[in-house]
């Protein structure tokens, strides 16, 4: 039988990735979160009975906020059980007794979660854009009706205002950053789960990290303003930043809702930060799992 062993095999990683994705799509929590997010996005269009600018603002705020929370929750809940469950069920023995390096197993697992998050994000974005488009079309018709007797320039101006309030190109990079934040959280959860004893422990630790991650930027600013900015302080803060990623840096939703343009520089800086953290935590997870006694 031709089964020559290679140190790195995309076929093996792909097999684990596809299997992880299949496993996760069978989790009821995934459907629950997705349905909940879809409901929230869908219902947000009925919440506002204000001016169209306010209505679009609320729609974007609620939808992007819900996407951020649900992808983060999905990343933590779905990842927390992956490796511990395989160990508990002994399926990990059967997999690692094959010529599969442990880092490939970890890579396959995280790739499966990232794929799931990508699918979730795309589905939620599609629903969001559909709702946004539907409301835009409705409001365009209403505006045309209301300004039927007005001069042509005034009508054009009113329609332009509706279109400008509806779709904003900055939503797209905003969603990419939401996805990258979820990837970071998934990789960090995978890392914690390699040494955690229970799923609950992993989820509790991740809940702490989530809140610390969102608050640490404020705490850092306060610390640097009220205390010295000596080298030791900066090193300490850098270590804290590595252990607890600055999740607030991934929050571009407020800027998008406020209509502030996201610069290309800010987008790339945040995206690189997300990829960097995801890579580091995946490598740490692979390192801990490599030395784990099964």
């Amino acid at each position, binding site marked *: 039988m031709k089964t020559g062993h290679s140190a790195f095999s995309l076929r093996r990683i792909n097999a684990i990735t596809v299997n992880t994705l299949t*496993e996760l799509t069978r989790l009821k929590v995934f459907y629950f979160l997705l349905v909940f997010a879809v409901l929230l996005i869908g219902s947000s269009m009925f919440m506002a009975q204000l001016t169209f600018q306010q209505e679009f603002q609320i729609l974007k705020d609620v939808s992007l906020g819900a996407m951020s929370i649900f992808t983060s929750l999905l990343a933590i809940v779905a990842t927390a059980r992956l490796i511990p469950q395989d160990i508990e069920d002994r399926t990990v023995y059967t997999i690692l007794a094959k010529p599969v390096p442990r880092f490939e197993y970890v890579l396959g697992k995280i790739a499966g979660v990232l794929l799931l998050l990508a699918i979730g994000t795309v589905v939620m974005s599609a629903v969001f854009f559909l709702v946004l488009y539907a409301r835009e079309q409705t409001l365009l018709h209403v505006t045309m009706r209301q300004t039927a007797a007005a001069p042509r320039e005034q009508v054009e101006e009113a329609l332009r205002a509706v279109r400008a309030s509806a779709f904003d190109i900055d939503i797209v990079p905003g969603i990419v950053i939401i996805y990258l934040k979820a990837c970071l959280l998934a990789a960090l959860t995978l890392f914690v789960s390699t040494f955690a004893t229970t799923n609950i422990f992993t989820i509790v630790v991740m809940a702490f990290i989530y809140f610390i991650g969102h608050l640490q930027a404020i705490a850092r600013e306060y610390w640097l303003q009220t205390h010295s900015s000596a080298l030791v302080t900066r090193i300490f803060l850098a270590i804290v930043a590595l252990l607890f990623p600055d999740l607030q840096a991934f929050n571009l939703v407020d800027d998008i809702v406020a209509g502030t343009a996201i610069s290309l520089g800010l987008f790339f800086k945040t995206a690189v930060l997300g990829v960097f953290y995801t890579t580091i935590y995946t490598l740490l997870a692979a390192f801990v799992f490599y030395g784990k006694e099964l």
Partner: protein
Amino acid sequence: MPPAASRFDMTDPAVAVRGLTKTFPVPFHRQSIVAVRDLDLRVESGEVYGLLGPNGSGKSTTLKIILGLVSPTRGRTEIFGRDSRLVESREAVGFLPENPYFYKYLTGEETLRFFGRLCGLGGALLKSRINELLNLVGLTKARKRRLGTYSKGMLQRIGLAQALIHDPKLVVLDEPTAGVDPAGSREIRDLILDLRRRGITVLLSSHLLAQAQEICDRVGILADGVLVREGRLQELIAIENQSELVIADASPPLIDEIESLVNRSNAKLIERRKSTTTLERLFLEATKNDQARMTKPE
């Protein structure tokens, strides 16, 4: 690419364990638990080797170290001459863990495809291998059923099939018949004997001694992590100064004559009794007849 077997030196023993010790630290205590102590073991290519012992004697730990799942505290283990900590050594090994639990949402066929891909197989080769193995373990009809609906015996058989997916030269089975009914157990026993006929080395752990006696060429007995006995089964269980004669259709006068012949010599007759079947055979025969009655048309 050369076949897996040819890249391993088949003149080396299938498994060689030298001076193996494994200790597990106890949290918040200075001392640690010794699971295996100074173990030397050698499984020759082509034989069925039984690692026997009570629960907690170190059988599973030894197997896990051989498979590279657990690292040894001291000593070395090799598979066909290769350090078993190396991932490529597992190319020659198939493993069935105790009470295996596979992904319930996969069908029998998908399970074999998943494990085949992990071994680098694909395309027509994998497809034909899946068909061959499903046929070998008698699960062709259940190939599209999810594993969640499989019985314990069926799970053991699909487990054996995944262990064989990449045509390994060594199969490691941890308690292969644990929790399986006598009929399922007999099927697994027959499959193991079939593997031996094909020249595949089998290393199995068990505490079901009657079964081990039926299939093993050599056995090693572990107690508290120490190998207390090892050797060819027939040599280990033979009673040097005793012999058995099993005679069919002998009349009572003939038996009496043999007995008096023994009494006239220096030998001593220890026991005279009717031959019996085993409880397992009786059970299998009885349930087979029962099955036949149930399927017989009115």
